[in-house]
């Protein structure tokens, strides 16, 4: 064996790992990768303040419903109605999204006693009934009972946040916000539903449980 053979093999090995690294880590940004070029170190660039939103014709209405759908506002007032029909699929989606984003604080039933509240977060008001007088809320209380609040108010709270509650606009899409509100309305109703309002199936279930 010639003396330079091991040496050359070693060099080749070193060189080939060189190429390997190039293909493994190509000179482009992956999402959320750190940047040396931008002074704030982010390769994901923020949206500039001057950017104008253009409605997506597939999902967003363009006409007079635009403000209703995207801002929850009708004639300058919080909307009283939903911008699209609510059916079973919307409610199911609403329940799923509610359980992801709202239960940690507002609780499964909307009583304001979620897990994070039990760990010391300031308690939100329940979605139904008189709100308890206590609370260190920095935000103005407009509705004594949230059942009286129009759906547009809920939309604004989710979009912009409210006092101690942060905004959820970046995490929950516009349609999902409306679905969540529909589900909150269902929660409110369910607290005060009488037995005679239930479908037969649920009434049977109920009598079985109470027996």
């Amino acid at each position: 064996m010639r003396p330079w053979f091991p040496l050359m093999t070693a060099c080749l090995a070193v060189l080939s790992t060189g190429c390997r690294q190039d293909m493994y880590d190509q000179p482009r940004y992956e999402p959320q990768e750190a940047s040396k070029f931008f002074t704030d170190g982010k390769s994901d660039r923020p949206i500039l303040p001057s950017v104008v939103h253009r409605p997506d014709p597939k999902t967003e209405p363009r006409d007079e419903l635009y403000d209703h759908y995207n801002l929850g506002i009708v004639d300058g007032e919080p909307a009283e109605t939903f911008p699209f029909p609510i059916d079973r699929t919307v409610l199911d989606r609403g329940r799923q999204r509610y359980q992801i984003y709202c239960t940690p604080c507002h609780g499964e039933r909307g009583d304001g006693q979620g897990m994070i509240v039990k760990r010391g977060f300031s308690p939100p008001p329940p979605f139904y009934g008189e709100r308890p007088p206590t609370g260190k809320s920095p935000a103005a209380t407009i509705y004594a009972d949230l059942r009286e609040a129009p759906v547009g108010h809920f939309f604004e709270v989710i979009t912009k946040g409210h006092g101690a509650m942060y905004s959820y606009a970046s995490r929950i899409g516009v349609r999902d916000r409306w679905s969540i509100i529909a589900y909150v309305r269902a929660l409110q109703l369910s607290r005060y539903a009488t037995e005679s309002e239930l479908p037969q199936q649920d009434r049977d279930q109920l009598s079985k449980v109470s027996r």
Partner: protein
Amino acid sequence: MPQIFHPSLNTLSRLSIFGGAFAALGLLAISYMLVGSPYQTQVGIIHDQPVQFSHEHHVGGLGIDCRYCHTSVEISAVSGVPPTYTCMSCHSQIWSESPMLQPVRDSLKNDTPIAWAKVHDLPDFVYFHHGIHIQKGIGCVSCHGRIDQMPLTFKDKPLTMEWCLECHRHPEKYIRPYEEIFNMEWKPPGGDQLTLGRKLIEDNHIPVDRLTNCSVCHR
């Protein structure tokens, strides 16, 4: 003609031939083991993170859904690490004095990102998409292990090509109903994964014969 080699060298030459062959094989075996070893694939290795974030506390203890933080996982290619704002939606009040969370508060105040160390990192020549896997019924736990029991995040699976292909050849061994994707403890009803898996492959229209094409992952 005098004999150049002494007969005793016969054994030596045989030995060296066999020895060489064995050495070569051994080297191959060692390098194969190295490539698959935790040292190379980084399985189970805990990285230094700027904040000691614990999935065990937040997911296992508090029951927060993955999507509260990893918002885009169902629809987009990347799942993404949550922005500081998400942490602060709770930590504005919870442990708001704790020195452990100082980097998080600084990050929000100065609008500078927290530099989380990447735990999973496929090579740039591999294409991966979270959305399709979630929509077609692969649970987080199949690829990330028991995240809800990890005090600090580590890689549970090697993410080698061999590993991806194992499932792309036989997805019926892993696939689950859509409602159970985020459930870390799900077991197939009656323990019969294969029957359920085959049915879900039908229902979700998964083209199993196409899933091992090179161009699925290298495009």
